[in-house]
């Protein structure tokens, strides 16, 4: 009896439900938000399994469009290019970012602010501006546009995406660990190889995966800096979308969506893993 009476009494003194957890409309807005964010993705994936050629009317389940996409020579070549570019660019970017992060996290030096600003540059400058200026640069220097130019451009804009997780990981490390190794007669190189490097590995992996996704998904830079023979999946899809909506585009798009979601989940799980190990 008293159990029921007490909250009722409380409520009387708080006529405006003081709990911010139950703000009216906020839950509704959150539901609306998730609807807005996920509905288009679900509709796209659903339509990619649609039997109908007319795309928007559901007539039955079918796997045909995926089969058709996978058997298309041009799609496979574009997918191969995408993977090749993303692999090389993300590996190079991660290597560069790791080296830089190791020094940047250690102590302050003159010019550090300039380096910080430069690393942030690919994130700040609108991609279209970077793309056309790189295009002009390659043209003036006299490098023919193709796979090489795309890989170079991708490497550069992937650096911050690889750098930030590695740097975050390094900043979270206890410097005493490396010092302890020194006390135990490890030289700086050994301390780095046996203590710091293994500890920063989750950051490196997470950064590498993010760089890989960013490169895999890039359209604008590839479109402007690329040439014959460097058509990636996004560039290929863009060509198809310009012609019109088609179930084959739905299928390829859905594959790309699922690959990105899988990869980003892996990267974030790696990030979570190191959070836990630190505690």
């Amino acid at each position, binding site marked *: 009896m008293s159990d029921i009476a007490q909250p009722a009494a409380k409520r009387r003194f708080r006529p405006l439900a003081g709990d911010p957890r139950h703000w009216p409309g906020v839950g509704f807005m959150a539901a609306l938000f998730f609807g807005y964010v996920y509905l288009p993705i679900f509709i796209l994936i659903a339509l990619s399994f649609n039997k109908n050629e007319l795309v928007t009317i559901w007539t039955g389940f079918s796997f045909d469009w995926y089969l058709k996409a996978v058997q298309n020579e041009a799609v496979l070549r574009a997918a191969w290019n995408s993977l090749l570019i993303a692999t090389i660019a993300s590996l190079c970017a991660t290597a560069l970012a790791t080296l830089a992060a190791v020094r940047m996290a250690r102590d302050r030096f003159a010019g550090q602010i300039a380096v910080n600003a*430069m690393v942030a540059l690919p994130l700040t400058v609108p991609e279209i501006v970077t793309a056309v200026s790189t295009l002009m640069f390659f043209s003036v220097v006299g490098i023919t546009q193709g796979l090489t130019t795309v890989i170079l451009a991708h490497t550069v804009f992937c650096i911050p995406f690889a750098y930030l997780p590695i740097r975050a990981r390094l900043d979270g490390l206890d410097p005493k660990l490396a010092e302890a190794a020194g006390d135990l007669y490890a030289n700086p190189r050994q301390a780095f190889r046996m203590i710091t490097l293994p500890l920063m590995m989750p950051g490196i992996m997470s950064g590498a995966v993010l760089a890989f996704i960013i490169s895999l998904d890039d359209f604008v830079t590839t479109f402007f800096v690329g040439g014959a023979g460097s058509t990636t999946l996004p560039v290929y899809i863009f060509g198809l979308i310009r012609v019109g909506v088609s179930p084959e585009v739905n299928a390829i798009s859905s594959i*790309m969506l699922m690959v990105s979601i899988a990869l980003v989940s892996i990267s974030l799980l790696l990030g979570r893993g190191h959070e836990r190990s630190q505690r």
Partner: protein
Amino acid sequence: MDAKVRDAARRRAAWRDRTLLVGPAAGAIFILMVVPLTLMAWISIQTRDFAGGVVWNDYSGEAYLRFLFERNLDDSLSWNFNYLLIILRSFWLSFITTTTSLLVGFPMALYMATRPARWRAALVFLVTVPFWTNLLVRNYAWILLLRDHGSINSVLLWLGVIDQPLPLLHNNFAVSVGLTYSFLPFMVLPIYTSLEKLDLRLVEAAFDLYATRLKVLRHILLPAALPGIIAGCILVFVPCLGSYVTPELLGGGKTMMIGNLIGLQFGAARNWPFGAALGFALLALVLIAMTIYALRTQQNGNSR
């Protein structure tokens, strides 16, 4: 003397360390970004070569005149507001997008910040995941929804709300929906980060003191969220201004933004100096906005 030599050797080693570790990344960004951007500024004051490219060392302000004027056949200038219109539209659409993102993002951030701690990581994950998927694909999904025979029109027709498909695609509306969709996480996450730090007991205390919901929102939640709101607005506005994919796909030819105008100069229009001038103007705007923001946050950090 010996100490001096050792000191010099140590300094040299430190310098070598720095160069070998930071050098490659900084060098790569310098050569493939700083140099091209400088080159772009340089090209913007060169004369246009009609075959594509530029005539070097033939300086001209023609590219910048094109923002407002048009060169007639008799070499006289007349006003031309077409490009200015595109620039103004870019600002307008970015503004609309930022406002919409704020109106949608703030309640979402509040929702996330008031959930139990064990849910929050999952919510952040759910908000972030779409951002990492392909921008082209995300915008393409909206074509499926918005076009004349798309999902929204089909549903509305079936319900009998309308008897003609609504023209939803290839207009400002479609572009702002797509832009909001593309950059929404940039609004939600900073606001969430600000609100998460807020002690919710403060809100309860305000209610105990008979504050209305509106008063709590105005005097507690909004001030607490303000740093996040400012950061979010910049993080949405800036990429909107330079967006290329969304207006290209959802806007069609009639609703160009600055990014598309720039792209056009390196494709069909073949006017490198004009494209470079536009790119340089956009770059300047973005860098000024970001610098002001960086200085502001630094000041706030110092005052605390």
